[in-house]
């Protein structure tokens, strides 16, 4: 008889699995209902509380179902499927939501940071064997920080003499006037030697690149290789473009090739022309060794280290110094990795941001681990029951790892979604076009990173919660089976420790946030000495007329630009109009080698100077329009022309530096690029700052009518909102001479604002990280404090019964929270001190030990702690001693 019943039970389990599941559900629900009713009836508990308690006493419904099922002994494989199903089905939406949100945010932001880090520092540059590409720079022995290009004669000597490099190429980047394909436009053009393409390993998608015989000084080399984008834009991607002619720099050039998409080296070039063409640069460039205009890139053979290449180049530089002492005596050479040279300071900034993202990611993991430990403690009974019923450790492990991985996957998916939304959003903060190699995207590499981080996180979470379960505390748990709070000492200790780590991590992040925010504020406060409000900037490029002399071109442009100025001046609302070739903020990055400047009296360059040197060819009233007063002498005037002696205006610091105490007015200076013209100093202006982050600089201004000024930036001063003028300004400029290309028309304010885009981007990221860190940490604090209050309900009841006032209880809870926060804060501050060097490159006039930041972060943490502890403390103070004791 007995076996009949047994068989019946077994059969039912095997055949009617789903039904059995439902019945277990129903049975357990019935149990909970009955227990709730009993509590309401016998203990006088209000129904909702009774429900909660019944549930707490009963433990996880799923857990018991599992425990019941475990008695049946399913095969391992079906067990795995069950683990997955259980994890998916488990009715814990809030928990799942929290975990997904936390993992998603921290993984997503880490992925965003990785995409930046990968683009700037990790992924190989998109050129053949890019790790063997180097840039070669020159510098003056006395100013080793200030690296410049090479003169053409020097470059050619290097090319002939150097042994340690397997290829070397030079270029000059310029804006080139392109006409005849739609409206005239300016094209970023690299005038390059033929080796450039082979060295970078780029093959044209159409036609060819330059041949070696297209490298002859002064040759009639009217050839152009188009970038893919320009080919699409100007030629509609037509395949029969090869052999067609296009009007560049006023002359027909033959299109000989088209390069593949996304190739834009150097300097985001859109077109390439032969460097040696007689139409590329002026003759003096081929002759003079003190015009450091050419970028040089080289390839080292696999067996030659950077140091060896450097030694070879040093030897060549020494020979040149002996041979040409007048120009090369102080010229030195530096060889740097291509990436290092291109990335510059950006690298350490991205590293700083990435370090912060890593901290945030850790914080997220710690937070999620805290959640899992909390839940694990809540499920201790389930596990104890399972173990008591003989569940194998292997099974337990599998279940936890499966669960961890599932949550990891959820978080990972959320993270990729966050990154997919955040990366394009970040581009809104990037007002410039990044070179192709620098563009950060959600690409395969980034997704692979997110995926491996996901799996890693999942495994860590799974094994952490498992490690927690595997502690030999079974007996404890079983004994406490009937009590609501199952959690015992070790669990809450672990959670407290995790919370301390959270606080420490977010303190470190907040310090980073504080320092970068303060740097940005400092940058905003910098007095550049330049008025930008109420000024509209319109960039206009003059055309090029073939077979005209230098003087003819200068005069043509000066005439055209003056006509434009006069036309603009007649627009209603326009107060004053002026222009200059280079203006602050927009051309801040364009610095000249200091040793291109000579004073006639001394005939020595100002080599001791290490800051930035800027020159600009301006129109009259340039200084007045920008609110820069004349300190001495006179302004540029329309009466200064090619027929009158060249004039110059110097900034105060420039005057002091170059004339060493003598009064600058009346002195003569020469500017390297125009080596035959000595200009007389006629005026002195105060030092201005061209970029908020500059630590000073020296400025020289020449007259646009006396020196080449192909592109002018009009500065239109108005009493109204400058943006309102933009359309009429553009129309006016285009009507004067359709061959002049009107580029961007934008308020000067906007340009000054955009000049800080990088800083703003980093600060923005830090702000996001800091905010998320604060949210995570307050959630962590809140959870651990709420739990603590629940756990000590009985104690609080006793205390209240013994006469403790609610404020005593509140104080107890707050003290506890403050203890956690204090330990974490101290740890975090120490950590922040230690990692400050990562942030150095992101700071501006703020010490990495900045007292304000380091003292305000603990205040923020204090406030957060107070908020996070407020509700638990209030709850603790409301504990009814009767209920607490009866329980």
């Amino acid at each position, binding site marked *: 008889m007995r*076996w009949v019943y047994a068989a019946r039970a077994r059969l039912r389990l095997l055949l009617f699995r789903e039904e059995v599941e439902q019945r277990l559900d129903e049975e357990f629900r019935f149990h909970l209902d009955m227990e709730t009713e009993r509590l309401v009836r016998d203990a006088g508990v209000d129904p909702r509380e009774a429900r909660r308690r019944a549930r707490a006493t009963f433990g996880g419904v799923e857990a018991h179902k599992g425990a019941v099922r475990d008695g049946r002994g399913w095969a391992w494989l079906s067990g795995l499927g069950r683990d997955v199903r259980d994890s998916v089905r488990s009715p814990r939406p809030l928990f799942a939501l929290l975990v997904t949100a936390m993992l998603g945010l921290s993984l997503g932001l880490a992925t965003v940071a990785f995409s930046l880090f990968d683009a700037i520092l990790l992924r190989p540059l998109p050129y053949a064997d890019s790790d063997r590409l180097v840039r070669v720079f020159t510098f003056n022995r006395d100013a080793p920080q200030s690296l410049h290009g090479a003169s053409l004669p020097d470059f050619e000597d290097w090319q002939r003499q150097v042994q340690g490099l397997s290829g070397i190429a030079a270029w000059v980047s310029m804006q080139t006037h392109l006409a005849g394909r739609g409206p005239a436009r300016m094209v970023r053009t690299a005038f390059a030697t033929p080796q450039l393409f082979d060295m970078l390993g780029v093959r044209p998608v159409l036609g060819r690149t330059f041949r070696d015989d297209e490298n002859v000084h002064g040759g009639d080399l009217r050839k152009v290789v188009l970038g893919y984008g320009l080919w699409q834009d100007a030629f509609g991607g037509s395949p029969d473009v090869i052999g067609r002619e296009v009007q560049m720099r006023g002359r027909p050039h033959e299109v000989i090739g088209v390069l593949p998409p996304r190739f834009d080296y150097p300097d985001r070039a859109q077109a390439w022309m032969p460097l040696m063409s007689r139409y590329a640069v002026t003759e003096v460039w081929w002759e003079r060794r003190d015009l450091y205009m050419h970028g040089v890139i080289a390839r080292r053979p696999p067996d030659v280290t950077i140091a060896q290449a450097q030694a070879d180049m040093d030897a060549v530089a020494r020979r040149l110094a002996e041979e040409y002492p007048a120009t090369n005596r102080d010229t030195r050479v530096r060889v740097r990795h291509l990436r290092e040279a291109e990335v510059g300071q950006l690298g350490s900034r991205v590293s700083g941001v990435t370090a912060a993202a890593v901290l945030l990611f850790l914080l997220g993991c710690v937070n999620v681990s805290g959640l899992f430990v909390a839940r694990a403690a809540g499920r201790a009974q389930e596990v104890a029951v399972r173990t008591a019923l003989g569940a194998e450790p292997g099974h337990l492990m599998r279940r936890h790892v499966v669960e961890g991985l599932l949550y990891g996957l959820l978080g990972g998916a959320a993270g990729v979604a966050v990154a997919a939304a955040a990366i394009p959003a970040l581009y809104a903060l990037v007002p410039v076009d990044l070179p192709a190699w620098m563009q950060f995207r959600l690409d395969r590499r980034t997704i692979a990173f997110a995926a491996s981080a996901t799996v890693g996180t999942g495994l860590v979470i799974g094994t952490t919660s498992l490690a927690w379960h595997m502690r030999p505390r079974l007996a404890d748990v*079983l004994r406490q089976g009937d009590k609501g709070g199952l959690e015992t000492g070790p669990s809450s200790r672990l959670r407290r420790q995790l919370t301390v780590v959270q606080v420490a991590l977010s303190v470190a992040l907040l310090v980073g946030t504080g320092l970068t925010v303060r740097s940005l504020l400092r940058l905003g406060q910098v007095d550049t000495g330049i008025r930008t409000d109420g000024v509209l900037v319109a960039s206009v490029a003059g055309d090029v007329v073939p077979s005209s002399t230098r003087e003819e071109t200068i005069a043509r442009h000066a005439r055209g630009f003056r006509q434009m100025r006069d036309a603009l001046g007649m627009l209603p609302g326009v107060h004053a109009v002026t222009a200059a070739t280079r203006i602050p903020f927009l051309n801040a990055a364009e610095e000249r080698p200091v040793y291109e400047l000579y004073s006639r009296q001394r005939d020595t360059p100002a080599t001791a100077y290490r800051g930035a040197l800027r020159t600009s060819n301006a129109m009259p009233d340039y200084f007045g329009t920008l609110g820069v007063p004349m300190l001495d002498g006179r302004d540029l005037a329309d009466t200064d022309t090619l027929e009158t002696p060249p004039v110059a205006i110097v900034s105060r610091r420039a005057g002091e530096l170059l004339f060493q105490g003598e009064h600058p007015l009346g002195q003569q200076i020469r500017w390297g690029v125009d080596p035959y013209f000595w200009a007389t100093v006629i005026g002195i202006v105060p030092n201005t700052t061209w970029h908020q982050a500059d630590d000073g600089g020296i400025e020289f201004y020449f007259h646009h009518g006396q020196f080449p000024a192909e592109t002018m930036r009009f500065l239109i001063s108005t009493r109204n909102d400058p943006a309102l003028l933009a359309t009429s300004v553009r129309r006016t400029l285009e009507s004067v001479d359709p061959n002049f290309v009107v580029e961007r028309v934008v308020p000067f304010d906007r340009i000054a604002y955009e000049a800080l885009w990088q800083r703003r981007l980093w600060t923005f990221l830090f702000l996001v990280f800091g905010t998320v860190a604060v949210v995570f940490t307050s959630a962590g604090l809140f959870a651990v404090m709420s739990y603590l209050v629940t756990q000590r309900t009985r104690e609080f009841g006793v205390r209240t019964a013994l006469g403790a006032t609610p404020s005593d209880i509140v104080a107890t809870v707050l003290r506890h929270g403050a203890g956690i926060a204090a330990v974490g804060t101290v740890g975090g501050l120490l950590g922040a001190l230690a990692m400050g060097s990562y942030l150095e490159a992101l700071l501006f006039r703020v010490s990495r030990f900045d007292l304000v930041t380091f003292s305000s972060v603990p205040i923020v943490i204090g406030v957060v702690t107070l908020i996070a502890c407020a509700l638990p403390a209030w709850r603790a103070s409301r504990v009814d001693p009767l209920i607490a004791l009866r329980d």
Partner: protein
Amino acid sequence: MARKQDDLRGSLDLVILKTLSLAPMHGWGIGQRIRQMSAGVLAVNQGSLYPALQRLEKQGLIRSDWGTTDNHRRARYYRLTPSGRRVLGDEIDSWRRFAEGLGAVLRST
């Protein structure tokens, strides 16, 4: 040690069987009744109760059917099978002998 666990587990089974010998009962009621009968000394943890019921059913000592409670709620009622009743008798005897033996030992010291 394994021996000891078996004894403990056996005692829970015994208590359940005893409870059911009076009348068929649902899971929650079994727990309540054990508590009442033991005057609050024995409190059965639900985490052990349901696995134990499952186990006993699988051994064919009890069987379950769905019924309705006094206030017309659907509940799963467990009842003793004849073999369960037989096992209960055996177990009670063996437990008594065990308790008596233990008592004798304890008294003599």
